[in-house]
């Protein structure tokens, strides 16, 4: 699960990570009020930031034509004007897809003077099965590009989960960023907090980009998490009630939310051949084989090991609500499940949804002969495939003929 920037900053602040003072709001008037408060405290510049789950907001364009989802303002009236232009409008960025995302919340925060920009992230290193913190002096830019062109500019510290991140590791990283004097201790405290946020929230990734040396209203330099992104481990959400409440359903695809209600793992793609498969690996492989034979998969859909009648019916309904879908490939390896029961479920689902597009079914496994017989005698105009390759070719050809 992903959360918004303002939510990520709330979590980070709970663990002692300095973030620019600010608040979230959903009306232009409230934005103005927050800005007035910040200016009154001596801030010279305020930033208005669109809260959507997609990067590249600053360089994005609203469908209204308004340029930029992140704006710097010198007055509260300017904040009111920019907030009015953003709220309720759809922002398109390089990560949002062409359909864009509706901006319904804004973060209004202090925009202190920035002396230097760094990068910091905590994530799981799969090779060592341990967390790593990585920092770079190349902040505010695309870190993947840095990794490719200047890998030596990324410094990593592996963390022993038995003791957690130790202060010396944070100081090492601070030194690697070229920090001196008081800033070393200041950065070390912040980095420890970033790690603690990652570990205690069961995050999949915490990214601070940029992490900045900023000048406060008092003229003192300090580290601050100017932007933040947090992704969470879905498997661990059950033990974080506060984080569950941060879920923003408006950011998720409606069909994916519907699918999750039936324990179906569905991801919508751009193609026109839907697939319904049991098992994640087989579901991926089914998408791959559709493409291999010249088709274009419309979704990833794993119905799990069971593939009950209720699940198959729900899955058909979800597949059919995607208007791009022109054909369906069902690929079930009934290991333990009786293929005949699965066949009965498919027939019921076809009847209940009044299916009118080509359906290719490939069943394999337990009691498969009876299952195929049931399908053949159903009177439905479905096509059966013997192997995955056979079924994939048949569905690609059936859709091609439409």
């Amino acid at each position: 699960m992903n959360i918004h920037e303002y939510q990520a900053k709330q979590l980070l602040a709970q663990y002692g990570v300095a973030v620019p003072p600010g608040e979230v709001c959903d009306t232009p008037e409230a934005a103005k009020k927050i800005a007035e408060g910040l200016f009154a405290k001596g801030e010279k510049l305020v930033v208005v930031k669109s809260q959507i789950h997609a990067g590249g907001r600053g360089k994005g364009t609203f469908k209204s034509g308004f340029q930029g989802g992140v704006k710097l303002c010198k007055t509260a009236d300017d904040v009111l004007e920019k907030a009015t232009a953003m709220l309720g409008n759809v922002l398109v960025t390089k990560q949002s897809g062409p359909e864009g995302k509706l901006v319904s919340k804004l973060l209004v925060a202090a925009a202190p003077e920035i002396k230097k920009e760094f990068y910091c992230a905590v994530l799981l290193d799969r090779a060592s099965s341990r967390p790593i913190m990585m920092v770079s002096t190349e902040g505010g830019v695309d870190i993947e590009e840095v990794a490719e062109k200047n890998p030596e500019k990324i410094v990593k510290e592996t963390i022993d989960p038995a003791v957690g991140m130790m202060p010396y590791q944070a100081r090492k990283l601070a030194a690697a960023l070229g920090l001196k004097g008081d800033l070393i201790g200041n950065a070390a405290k912040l980095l420890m907090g970033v790690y603690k946020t990652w570990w205690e929230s069961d995050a999949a990734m915490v990214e601070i980009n940029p992490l900045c040396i900023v000048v406060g209203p008092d003229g003192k330099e300090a580290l601050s998490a100017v932007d933040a992104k947090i992704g969470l481990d879905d498997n661990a959400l059950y033990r974080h009630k506060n984080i569950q409440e941060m879920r923003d359903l408006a950011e998720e695809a409606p069909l994916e939310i519907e699918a999750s209600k039936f324990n179906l793992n569905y991801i919508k793609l751009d193609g026109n051949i839907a697939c319904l498969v049991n098992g994640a690996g087989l579901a991926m492989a089914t998408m791959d084989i559709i493409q291999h034979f010249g088709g274009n998969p419309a979704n990833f859909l794993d119905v799990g090991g069971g593939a009950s009648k209720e699940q198959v019916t729900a899955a058909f309904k979800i597949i059919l609500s995607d208007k791009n879908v022109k054909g369906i490939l069902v690929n079930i390896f009934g290991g333990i499940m009786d293929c005949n029961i699965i066949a009965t479920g498919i027939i019921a689902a076809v009847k209940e949804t009044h299916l009118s597009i080509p359906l290719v079914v490939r069943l394999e496994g337990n009691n498969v002969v009876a299952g195929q017989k049931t399908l053949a005698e159903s009177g439905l105009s479905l096509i059966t495939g013997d192997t995955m390759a056979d079924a994939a070719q048949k569905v690609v050809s059936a859709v091609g003929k439409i």
Partner: protein
Amino acid sequence: MSILVTPQTKVLVQGVTGSFGARHTQLSIEYGSQIVAGVTPGKGGQVFEHAGKKVPIFDTVAEAAQQTGATASAIFVPPPFAADAILEAIDAGLALAVCITEGIPVNDMVKVKRAMEGKTTRLIGPNCPGIVTPGEGKDSHGGCRIGIAPGYIHKKGNIGVVSRSGTLTYEAVWQLTCRGVGQSTCVGIGGDPVNGTSHLDVIKMFNDDPETHGIIMIGEIGGAAEEEAAEWIKANCKKPVAGFIAGATAPPGRRMGHAGAIVSGGKGTAAAKIAAFKDAGIGVAVTPSEMADTLLKMM
């Protein structure tokens, strides 16, 4: 021989009284596997009965292992308690723990891996179908089945299968069996980002097993475990290896069902893994329908 387990391996089941654990314990008993004990805290002294077999239930793994001589565990414990169950199996000194549970928090597994350092127990999984060493009987009856794989699709023979995915393993096994080719052992290592045993660990065991003559390795997007195995195979493996990688069409940044199946930061793509396979001389099945044929052509 085989790897990890033989038909004689004595197996205990943690979470034997849950509906999922109970169902698959019944199937393992029907398959002829040596299920000697169950463990459910608070239900010690009760008996798990199926098909005329009486399996004693114990409160702790240590007790179960001591009294029955079990050396392997099948873990069917719900996600919040699974890390604890794995560590209990390790503490009891079992040779093998196979964790079927899907949905364990990643940080729990990070802790488990750290706690396992220096221990002798081998962990397979989590989020995996388990292990099958096929038996000599009809439909491979009499083999050792730990986990949730359908037993009857197997056939005793000389091909080793290792995979991150359950149903793709069954697909490969069934292709082999339909061609009259049997398997030495089939191992599902699981779809999570942190697991006990890697592709490479299993490949090394297959390489050392005289009964294994060829290997099918099935991978998917995410991580770099397939590349690591390929590099080792290139320099060391004496046996033909065929492989398949799932997820060539998966969009970057999305988890494809398995927690570990994600392309992030341009890393873990199917293209990179397929290139590593080809470079190592591993036969690449262009589609999942050709996994068995790709290997058989090499043998």
